[in-house]
């Protein structure tokens, strides 16, 4: 495959640019909000680079992707990145969602936190973007671990960026759970290194398929898969490990909630997909019965996340619990253990990482009208005060329920179609159906509330800056774009998945 210079170097440059931006942000002067503008600029450059890479790989005659050695040494000795169509599409979506969540909540951070903390917040956002991109592109399991660490610390820090009792408690809880997850992942990596002698994914896979054939070391292999999965599941808030999530995502400032729910979870989920697909291989996973476990936990997450969301009266906690259910969808697709199921799961990653930041941003915009109250009743009638946030909230809610023409429909459709090829179809369809109903049960009242001209008629309209409105409308446009024309996107992802292994 012929590669031009920019497309070939994009994976490295995009990670490196964000790291370098994070490193020099603390010495940028705080005046005129330069740190935040600088970080937006870097993310925007990344959007352009990733967009070019997607275009390049999609139009290339044979789009098998390429490996990128980081440094002078070839593969088993040095670090390596890998970029295929799937990674490029996800990186593009992550950058877009990150950019829009930062610009959309630009106004809110000024009201909530001091200038000094805003500077540190931009450092953390740059680090999170770098870690997310590195988790997307990495081909080396230890590099993945290093960036998981950065992700963990930075994610806990952006919860605690606004200092209240609730956020500090939530951040501590999140940190304890997250560190347990990191420890388990590290143990699993140690076991795998001891068994295979490699840290690069394709070499590990060769060695593991040899081990499985000979039947040696079957217990350590099983334990390492289980540890890796549970460690990453803690970090990506799969159902029984998800009780840190509503506190952390519900209490922090809007930009943190949007980034954490929409993006930070997705990096870890994509790493699970990567480990299943590239390190173990789907046949080994199904021989070790890991797919069934993931499928059952995914179904449980879908139902229980929605049930918990029904009980909430705080709008941000409601959206946060809905994230638990949405993560369940992704794991359900992964548990189908087929290429088409994983493609559907990846489509849901794309859809959710665009909708969830939109919901959090619009909820922030609405609660801003009601004097920063996040209780559902206090939001009554806010639609009339902030029409773009209200529209975005309705679009997001419809999308989460899965109404055709909205983005959520696309991924639910793909998941259902994927489950037809599996013998678990009946359970998958039942879970999807039940959860659509539950989603409707808690999103429709929330939508009705913002329309109700109740007792809150005396609220005053507060003018929000242009950046908020523009970001919200871009979010809405992207939502309809995916909802109406998801077939090309699904084709792109399916192509990417087919060359991923």
């Amino acid at each position: 495959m012929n590669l031009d210079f920019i497309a070939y170097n994009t994976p490295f440059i995009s990670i490196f640019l964000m790291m370098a931006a994070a490193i020099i942000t603390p010495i940028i002067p705080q005046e005129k909000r330069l740190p935040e503008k600088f970080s937006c600029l870097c993310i925007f450059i990344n959007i352009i680079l990733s967009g070019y890479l997607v275009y390049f790989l999609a139009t290339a005659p044979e789009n098998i992707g390429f490996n990128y050695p980081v440094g002078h040494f070839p593969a088993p000795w040095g670090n390596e990145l890998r970029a295929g169509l799937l990674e490029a599409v996800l990186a593009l979506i992550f950058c877009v969602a990150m950019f829009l969540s930062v610009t959309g909540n630009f106004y809110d951070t000024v009201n909530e936190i001091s200038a000094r903390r805003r500077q540190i917040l931009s450092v953390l956002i740059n680090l999170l973007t770098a870690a997310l991109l590195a988790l997307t592109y990495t081909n080396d399991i230890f590099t993945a671990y290093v960036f998981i660490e950065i992700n963990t610390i930075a994610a806990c820090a952006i919860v605690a960026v606004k200092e209240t009792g609730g956020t500090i408690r939530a951040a501590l809880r999140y940190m304890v759970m997250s560190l347990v997850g990191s420890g388990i992942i590290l143990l699993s990596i140690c076991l795998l290194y001891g068994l295979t002698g490699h840290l690069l994914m394709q070499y590990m896979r060769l060695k593991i398929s040899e081990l499985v054939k000979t039947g040696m070391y079957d217990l350590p292999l099983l334990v390492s898969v289980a540890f890796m999965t549970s460690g990453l599941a803690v970090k990506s808030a799969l159902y029984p490990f998800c009780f840190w999530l509503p506190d952390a995502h519900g209490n922090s400032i809007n930009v943190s909630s949007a980034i954490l729910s929409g993006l930070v979870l997705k990096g870890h989920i994509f790493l699970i997909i990567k480990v299943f697909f590239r390190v173990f291989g789907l046949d080994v996973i199904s021989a070790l019965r890991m797919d069934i476990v993931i499928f059952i936990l995914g179904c449980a997450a879908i139902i229980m996340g929605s049930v918990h969301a029904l009980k909430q009266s705080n709008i941000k906690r409601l959206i946060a619990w809905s994230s638990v259910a949405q993560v369940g969808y992704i794991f359900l697709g992964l548990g189908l253990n087929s290429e088409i199921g994983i493609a559907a799961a990846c489509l849901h990653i794309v859809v959710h990482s665009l909708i969830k930041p939109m919901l959090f941003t619009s909820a922030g915009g609405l609660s801003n009208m009601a004097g920063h109250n996040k209780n559902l009743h206090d939001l009554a009638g806010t639609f009339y005060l902030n029409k773009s946030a209200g529209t975005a909230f309705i679009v997001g809610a419809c999308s989460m329920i899965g109404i055709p023409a909205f983005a959520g429909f696309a991924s639910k459709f793909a998941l259902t179609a994927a489950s037809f090829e599996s013998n678990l179809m009946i359970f998958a369809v039942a879970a999807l159906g039940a959860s659509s109903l539950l989603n409707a049960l808690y999103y429709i009242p929330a939508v009705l509330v913002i329309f109700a001209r109740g007792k809150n008629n005396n609220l005053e309209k507060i003018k929000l800056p242009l950046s908020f409105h523009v970001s919200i409308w871009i979010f809405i446009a992207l939502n309809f774009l995916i909802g109406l024309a998801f077939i090309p996107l699904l084709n792109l992802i399916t192509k990417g998945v087919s060359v991923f292994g």
Partner: protein
Amino acid sequence: MNDEIKIIWLKFFNWVMGNGPRPENEIIPPELPPDLPFTRTPDKKHSRFHEITISERLIQWLSLHGLHVFANFYNILSIIVCLLIIALMLMTVADLPPFGDFHNPANNEVVERYIKAGARETGAENIVAGMILDYRAFDTFGESAVLFTGAITVLMILGTSVKKDKSELKRLHLKTHSGFEDRNFLAFAPSLHIYRDDDAILRGVASLSIPVIIIMGCVVIISGHLTPGGGFSGGAILSTALILCANAYGFIKVHEFFSERTFIVSSSSALSIYALAKGYSFLTGANHINSGIPIGTIGDIFSAGLILPLNICVGIVVAGTLYGFYALFSEGEI
């Protein structure tokens, strides 16, 4: 049936409008029986008049013992889970390849090349330095960024607590030097770390050992590519010198040459140099361009290409970060 639906709809409508149930529809709860006396066993006289049903007994028992039982159950369950995980991990360890065996999967071509060709390819006599700063330098770049992230986070969370007035601190500092002891002041002194200024033994030992520690740290960093050590360990040694200095002479003395601004600027610029140097080397390596960085003669101080400057950068970051952690956790500011 129709009325019921109407009532449910009305209730939902009211909930949406945020009014709550209307007074006329409000279900007034039946009057509760008076609270039972707070005793573990209800007295028999009382039960003669009122037969307690099983469900009431259960509720009563749960309210008295529920939390206790739950705590016990939780403890026992967590012990069982821990024991299961311990058993599983011991079984796994028993199944792993034997330690130090030549035929282990980990002893493959990767390790062979690191050991045989490491010195020739990276120019570092210390194989570990060659491995972490040349073969797998991307991971090490990430690791130093982890330290940076941690430092920035701690600075954010602890560093914005109420700033102490600098002039006030100086005044107190002078007071203790002049031998003036104020009882009120001494009550605050432990949190300010000022009363230790009078510790003659600590100061004497510190004045002797700090130069030695600094020289030792510098040697470990600078000869990181020749002998065991390097940026991480040397930086930790340097930070102990700073911490000792702060304890013996007070944090104000350290402030004179190492403030928060110094900390941020030094770690940021050290990491920037690291990033620039390594970014150049990564880019040229990936595009198969000769980077033109000389390896030099193996065993010299100025050899091994980028490893020496990288070690110095890592050392600066580690020293600053560890001292920063100490200062922030004990003082609340650097």
